[in-house]
């Protein structure tokens, strides 16, 4: 376990140890925080001309344009919410990979909870039935008794 932890630590800790070397490559974006926000937003927006990709993953022209929009709007100080509204005003909810909560999507969001509740209710129902039966469980049959004795005496493994 210790070795494992050590390996984890070594492999992961290197992450902040990065040092600058001569001729360090230019990042495509100067502001790493804005860049991170832009990528996170882009991952949530669907590329409309692609099969099923986010605008972050696609190289389609529209995706490139929309990525640019996201970056410009972040630079202009808009909030994530404002940028998302900008997109849905133009392309509808289809552009969002995370569907907004509204009457039509209610079932989508509470559906998993309903399923879980149904499962738990069914399980509790079944368990109560079975465990009641279990308290009245029958004693060992003769054959089982014989085998148990055999096992205890070490005649069978």
């Amino acid at each position, binding site marked *: 376990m210790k070795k494992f932890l050590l390996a984890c630590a070594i492999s992961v800790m290197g992450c902040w140890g990065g040092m600058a070397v001569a001729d360090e490559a230019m990042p495509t974006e100067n502001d790493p925080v804005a860049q991170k926000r832009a990528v996170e937003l882009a991952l949530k927006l669907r590329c*409309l*001309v692609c099969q099923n990709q986010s605008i972050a993953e696609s190289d389609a022209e*529209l995706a490139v344009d929309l990525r640019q929009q996201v970056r410009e709007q972040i630079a202009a100080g808009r909030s994530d919410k404002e940028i998302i509204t900008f997109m849905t005003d*133009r*392309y509808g909810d289809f552009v969002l990979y995370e569907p907004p909560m509204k009457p039509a999507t209610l079932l989508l969001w509470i559906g998993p909870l309903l399923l879980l509740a149904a499962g738990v209710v069914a399980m509790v129902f079944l368990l109560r039935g079975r465990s009641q039966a279990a308290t009245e469980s029958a004693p060992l049959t003769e054959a089982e008794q014989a085998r148990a004795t055999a096992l205890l005496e070490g005649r069978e493994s």
Partner: protein
Amino acid sequence: MKKKLLLLIPLVVFFVLAGFFVVGLGLNPKEIPSPLIGKPVPAFSLPDLNAPEKAVTPQDFLGQVWLLNAWASWCVSCKTEHPSLARLAKTSDVSIIGMLYRDKPENGSEWLRRHGDPFTVSIADADGSVGIDFGVIGTPETFLIDKQGIIRYKQTGPINEEVLNKKIIPMIKELKQL
């Protein structure tokens, strides 16, 4: 009895799903409705393709019913819809504004010279930024706008005779009477 009914649940769920699939097979998952229907036309100010120094804005068309057609010279379907647009231009007095989307103005002018120009006014959206405001996904797309500057209808993909006769021409007539 109650238990027997419970055992039918999987079957019922499956047939409900199957019902949705039957309907779903007739739908096009790639057809995306525009949220701009019923909203005012986005503001823009774009250069006239034939007279670049002149700016065209939506205010120029207030009080009339007009069409905005987003197209490009590299777009194959735009050529498909060209005859229908040309017929509309000839038979009706509706203004058709051609918006050259993500294309060089000279390519657009050349294309119009070769195939004929159905547009009342042509504007150039070279970088596609006005296209984004209109929620243009791919050319051709056509918006029908009423006298108050409200978008009433959007045609995604090429206009054909059927769309023209069943949808666009009747709607133009109706909107003109308002």
